[in-house]
C-alpha cells in the first residue's frame, strides 16, 4: 500500500529530485537513529519512526546541515510525513518558501 503510494508520487511528477532527496533523508534518519529504517513518502516521522519531539529537532538539524539551509520552526511544525519534509527541503532549496 505504502509502496504503491510512493510509486504514484514518483509517476505523478515527483521526479528524480524527490527520489534523491528521499534517499538522502533515509540516510540521515539512519545516522540519527543509529539503525536501518525503511521510509516511503507517507511514513509518519513521529508515529512510524518512534521519534519524540527532541529527536525530531535533532533530526531536523542534521537535515539542515546536510542541505545547508534552515527550516523555520513554524515550517517544522507542519511536517508530519516524509513527503512533507521533502517538500519543505525542496521549497527552501529553490527559494520558494514563504
Amino acid at each position, binding site marked *: 500500500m505504502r509502496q504503491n503510494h510512493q510509486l504514484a508520487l514518483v509517476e505523478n511528477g515527483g521526479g528524480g529530485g524527490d527520489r534523491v532527496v528521499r534517499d538522502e533523508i533515509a540516510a540521515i534518519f539512519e545516522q540519527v537513529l543509529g539503525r536501518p529504517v525503511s521510509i516511503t513518502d507517507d511514513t509518519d516521522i513521529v508515529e512510524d519512526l518512534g521519534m*519524540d519531539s527532541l529527536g525530531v529537532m535533532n533530526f531536523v*538539524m542534521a537535515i539542515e546541515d546536510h542541505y545547508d539551509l*534552515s527550516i523555520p520552526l513554524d515550517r517544522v511544525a507542519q511536517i508530519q510525513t516524509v513527503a512533507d519534509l521533502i517538500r519543505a527541503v525542496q521549497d527552501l532549496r529553490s527559494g520558494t518558501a514563504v
Partner: protein
Amino acid sequence: MTILAKHAAYRHAYDAFLAHGVDPLNVRFDGVLSPTEGVLNGQRTILLGTNNYLGLTFDEDCIAKAVEATRAQGTGTTGSRVANGTYGGHARLEREVADFYGRQHAMVFSTGYQANLGVLSTLVGRGDHLMLDADSHASIYDGSRLGMAEVIRFRHNNPDDLYKRLKRLEGMPGDRLIVVEGIYSMLGDTAPLKEFAAVKRETGAYLLVDEAHSLGVLGETGRGLAEAAGVEADVDFIVGTFSKSLGSVGGFCVSDSPDFDLMRIVCRPYMFTASLPPGVVASTIEALLKLRAMPELRHDLMRNATRLYDGLSAMGFQTGPEANPIVAVTMPDQKTAGVFWKMLLDSGLYINLAVPPATPSNASLLRSSVSAAHSIAQIDEALEIFAEVGRKLGFLPSDRRRVAGAL
C-alpha cells in the same frame, strides 16, 4: 473521550513515576522556615532547589518595605498600568533597574515569563528573523510563537552554527534578533557571550540576553553574564526576573534603544495584565539595593556553589560543565532519577527532578540550586545525603567517599 484526552501521553509518563511512589509535582510544604529550610511531612528539609540565589526572601528590610507599602497602598493594583495607572513604586522600580544596568530604559512586567513573551513578540515581527538557542527556556519558545517572526534554532552555545544560519539569511530583508541566556536553567552552563557578540557585530543582528539565572550571580557588580564577559555594550536588550535573586516576582527588560517606550503601547503581555502589587514592588526595590550594597552575598553564593559542585563531582557524579549556583547531576534514566530524587526528599533534602522534554538532550537530571544563605554545614549535609543515597542505589562504591575526600 474528553477534550483533554489528547494529552494522555503525558499522564502515562507521569503515572510511571507515581508507580514508584515518586510524585514530583505534588510536593506540599507544611511550612517554609527560611530561604534554606522548609518542613515537609513534619520533617525539617534543606531547600536546595528554589533559585533563591541571594537568600533574600526572609530579609527583614525587604519584608518591612513590603508590609509598609501594602499598608499604605493596598494588596494589589487590580489592573494593568494602561487601565489603572502607574503607581509611584512601578516608576521607581523601573528607574532603579535602569540605573543598576546603566541603561536609559527599563520596563517592568508582572512575571519573567511575561517579559519574554512581551519582548520577543514585540521586537521582531513578520519578515524578521528570531534566532534562538536550541536549549532556550520555555518562555522564550512561547514568546517566539506569540509573534510573527520566522524562528530559527541554532545549536546550543554554538556561535559558529549561529553564524552559519545568519549567513544563509544574507540578502533577505528584515531584522535579526539573537536570543541567548546568561546561565541555562537546567545544567547551569553559561553562554559563550564574547563569541556570540562577535557574530552579532559581524552580521548586524541585535542581541538579547536573558539573565534570569545570572542576575545577582555573575559579574563584578552582579549584572550578569554580559558584565562578566565584558560585552555589555554589544547587548541590545537584557531580560530578567525578580523571582530568583531578588526573592519576589516580576520580570523586566532594559535597553538603550531610543524609542524603547514604544513597547508600552504595543507590547500586549505588558498592556493586558495586572501590574505588580505595591508590596512586591517595594520588596524588589529593597532587594536590588541589597544586591548592590552587599557583594559578599555573591561571594558566599559562589563559595557554596563551588563546594557543592566540587563535592558531587569528586564523588563521581556526572555534573554540568561548570561550577555555578545551578548544579545538575545527570542520571542514567527517568526512573532512576525519580527514585533517587524521592530518596533525597525522604532524607530531608529538596532539589528539583527535571526530565524530558524540559531538559536538554533528553537527559534526566537531579537539579540543585544553591543560595548565599546556605551554611557550609548545610552544603556538607546535602553532600552527605547525596553520598548516602548514591551508595544505597549502587552509584558510589561504599569507600569512594573517603578516597575522593569530598566530605
